[in-house]
C-alpha cells in the first residue's frame, strides 16, 4: 500500500471564544488525499471546512489527532523534512483583494519566494521564471503585468497571480479555499480550468473547499467530495456518486435546497422539510448525530445518543448515519 500524500487522523480543533467557552470547529475528522487526487470539502459556513484546510496547510495546529504528510506527522517535522513539507503544501485564498500585498508589484510578489529559496539565480533567471509562471496561469503577455501593483488588476487576474506565486516553490499539494467564490461568475470556470490544467500538468493534489455543490461536482468530476456538517464529515465518496445519489440525509437536504441553474431540475424538485430551521450553536453541539435536531428522518434514541461513525459502503461512499448504515448493512465494505 502506498503512503497517502496527506492524511488526517481523527483530527479535532477547538477555538476558545470566551473565558471558558470553546467551539469545536472540526470534530474527529479523518481523510486521505493521494498524489494527484482531488478532494472537495463541501459544506455551509461554519461547518469547519476552512479550519480543516488550514490544519492541512499547517497554518493551524490540531487540538487532537494528527496530520501526516507522506506518512510523517507534520507536528514532528524538523529541519529539511519540515521545509519540504512547508513548500510542498500551498494554499490559494478566497479574497482576491487581500491575497496580494498591495505594496508589492507582481514581479516582487513572485520573486520573493524564488530568491528566498534560491530557485532561480540572478535577475535575468528570476525574470525569466516569473514570465513563465505568469504565462502558465494565463496572465499574458507577462511583461505587461510584471511592474503592476495588485490594485491595477481585476479580481480574476489577482487570483491567477496568487496561483503563480504559489507555483514558484513547486508544490505537490494545494488547498484552494473558496478560491473562486469572490470572482465574477463569467470567469470562474476559466479560473477553475486553469487550476485543473495545472493539476494535470504538474500532478498536483488539490483540496478544494467550497460551499457550492455544483461547483464541487464540476471541479472534482473524477475525484472525491466530502460533505461536512458542524465539524464532521457526514458523507464522502466519488464526486458524481455523492451528488447524483446522496446517502446522508444532510446531503440530501442540501442538494434539494440548492438553487440550481438547471431550469427543469429546479421546477421538478420537491423540497424536503426539516424538523427545525435553526442551525445548532457550535458552542453546544447536539449529542449523538449532530444533524438529529433537524433531520427529516429522525428516528429517536439512537440518533439522539449515539454518534454515527463514518463507514464505508461497497459503492465506495462513506456515510455517517445510523439509518443509512442499517439499510445498507449488507453493503458494508
Amino acid at each position, binding site marked *: 500500500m502506498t503512503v497517502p500524500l496527506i492524511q488526517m487522523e481523527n483530527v479535532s480543533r477547538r477555538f476558545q471564544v470566551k473565558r471558558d467557552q470553546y467551539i469545536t470547529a472540526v470534530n474527529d475528522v479523518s481523510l486521505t488525499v493521494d498524489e494527484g487526487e482531488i478532494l472537495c470539502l463541501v459544506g*455551509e*459556513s*461554519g461547518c469547519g471546512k476552512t479550519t480543516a484546510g488550514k490544519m492541512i496547510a499547517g497554518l493551524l495546529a490540531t487540538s487532537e489527532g494528527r496530520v501526516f504528510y507522506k506518512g510523517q506527522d507534520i507536528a514532528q517535522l524538523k529541519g529539511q523534512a519540515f521545509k519540504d513539507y512547508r513548500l510542498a503544501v500551498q494554499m490559494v485564498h478566497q479574497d482576491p483583494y487581500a491575497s496580494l500585498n498591495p505594496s508589492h508589484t507582481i514581479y516582487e510578489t513572485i520573486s520573493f519566494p524564488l530568491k528566498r529559496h534560491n530557485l532561480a539565480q540572478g535577475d535575468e533567471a528570476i525574470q525569466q521564471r516569473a514570465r513563465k509562471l505568469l504565462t502558465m496561469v494565463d496572465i499574458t503577455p507577462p511583461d505587461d503585468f510584471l511592474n503592476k501593483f495588485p490594485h491595477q488588476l*481585476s479580481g*480574476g*487576474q489577482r487570483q491567477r497571480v496568487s496561483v503563480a506565486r504559489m507555483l514558484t516553490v513547486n508544490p505537490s499539494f494545494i488547498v484552494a479555499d473558496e478560491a473562486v467564490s469572490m470572482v*465574477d*461568475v*463569467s*470567469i*470562474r*470556470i*476559466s479560473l477553475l*480550468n486553469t487550476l485543473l490544467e495545472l493539476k494535470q500538468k504538474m500532478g498536483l493534489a488539490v483540496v478544494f473547499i467550497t*460551499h457550492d*455543490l*455544483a*461547483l464541487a*461536482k*464540476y471541479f472534482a*468530476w473524477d475525484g472525491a467530495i466530502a460533505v461536512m456538517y458542524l465539524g464532521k464529515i457526514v458523507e464522502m465518496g466519488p464526486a458524481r456518486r455523492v*451528488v447524483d445519489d446522496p446517502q446522508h440525509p444532510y446531503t440530501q*437536504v*442540501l*442538494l434539494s*435546497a*440548492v*438553487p*440550481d*441553474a*438547471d*431550469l427543469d*431540475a*429546479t*421546477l421538478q424538485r420537491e*423540497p424536503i422539510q*426539516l424538523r427545525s*430551521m*435553526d*442551525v445548532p450553536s457550535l458552542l453546544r453541539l447536539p449529542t449523538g448525530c449532530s444533524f438529529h435536531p433537524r433531520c427529516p428522518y429522525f428516528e429517536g434514541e439512537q440518533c439522539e445518543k449515539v454518534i454515527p461513525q463514518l463507514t464505508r459502503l461497497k459503492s465506495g461512499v462513506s456515510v455517517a448515519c445510523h439509518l443509512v448504515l442499517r439499510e445498507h448493512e449488507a453493503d458494508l465494505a
Partner: protein
Amino acid sequence: MSKSTNQQTSKSSPPTLSVRNLVIEYQAKRGAVRAGRDISFNLQRGEAVALIGESGSGKTTAGLGIVRLLPENAQIKQGQIIYRRLENGRVTETDVRALNDRQLRQFRWKECAMVFQAALNAFNPVLRISAQFGDTARAHNYLRGRKLKERALHLFDLVRLDPERVWRSYPHELSGGMRQRVLIALGLLLEPQLLILDEPTTALDILTQRNIIDMLKDLRKTLDFSLIFISHDLSLAVELADRVATMYAGRIVELCDVYTTFKNPAHPYTIGLINAVPTLTAHKDRVTSIPGSPPDLIDLPPGCKFHPRCPLADERCRTEEPGMENPTPNHQAACWKWQSARESLAGGWEL
C-alpha cells in the same frame, strides 16, 4: 405635485413601474463611472422581474436609482421612473425623479420598499426591533401602539418567525437568517405595491437561503405586490422571477420570461453566462467559460460593450451599439446577431 390621476380598471392596469432610458453615473477620480446606461423596463402588476448580472453590471445601481438612494457621488443623468399606485381600481401615477424630499420620504417604503444586500447590518444595533418598526410606522403616519404590534406580529408569523420574541429583541440577538426575515417583514409593513430585493440571500447558508426563497414564494401568493429581484445568481432567478433582465456593462442586454431565458436565450452574453454556471445535473463538458473579463465602466469599449469577449463580433459590433431588438413581442435582446447567436454558439463557445 407630479401626480396625475386617471381612472382605469385593474384588469388592464398599466405597469406598476416603468423605467425609461435611465442613465446613472458615478464620479470617480479617473472619470465618470457609467454604471447605468439606458436602462428601460416595465414591471407589471404582481409580476417579479429579476435583474441578473455580475458585479459592476449596474443591477444594484438600477435598484438604488429607482428609490433615489444613490450615494452622493452618483447621479441620475437622464431617464424616467414612473410608479403607478393602484387603489380601489384607481391608478395614481408618480414621477419618482420629480419628487421633492418630503414626497420622496413618503414614497420610500410606503410605495416601494427596498431590502438590501447586507441585511446583517440593516438594523440599528442599539434599538429594539419594536422601536425600529415604530420608527417606520411613525414616519408614514401608519398604525401605532397595539395595532402596530398586532400588524407586526402578523407579519412575523408570515415570515415564519417567533413573533413575540422577535418583537422584543435587539438585532444582535437574532441570527442572520432571522434578521433577513425581519427585514422582509418590515418591508411589507406598510403594504407597499413594489418590493425591491437586492441579493436577499447572499451570505446566508444554503438551508436558510432555501427557507427564505420558499417564504418569498409563499408571500407572493398571499400578498399583492410587484417584485424586483436583484441577484448575481441565475439559479435564484429561476426560483423567484417571472421575467429575467440580464445586465451587462450598465445596460439590460436581454429581457424575457424565465423559461425563454434558459431555453432560448438570444444574447451571446446570456448564453455564455448560462453555460458558465455548472449545475448539479449537467455534464462537465457542457460548462464553458466566457473569455476575457467584464469591461472597465470608466473606459468602455466602442460599439457593443460585449464585443471584446464575443466570438460572433464583427465590424458592426465593434463600432455600433445595438438597441433592443425584438425576437418576439415579449423577448428583447440588445444584439446585432440575436437571430443567429444561439445557433452559432450551439457547438461551443470557441469558434
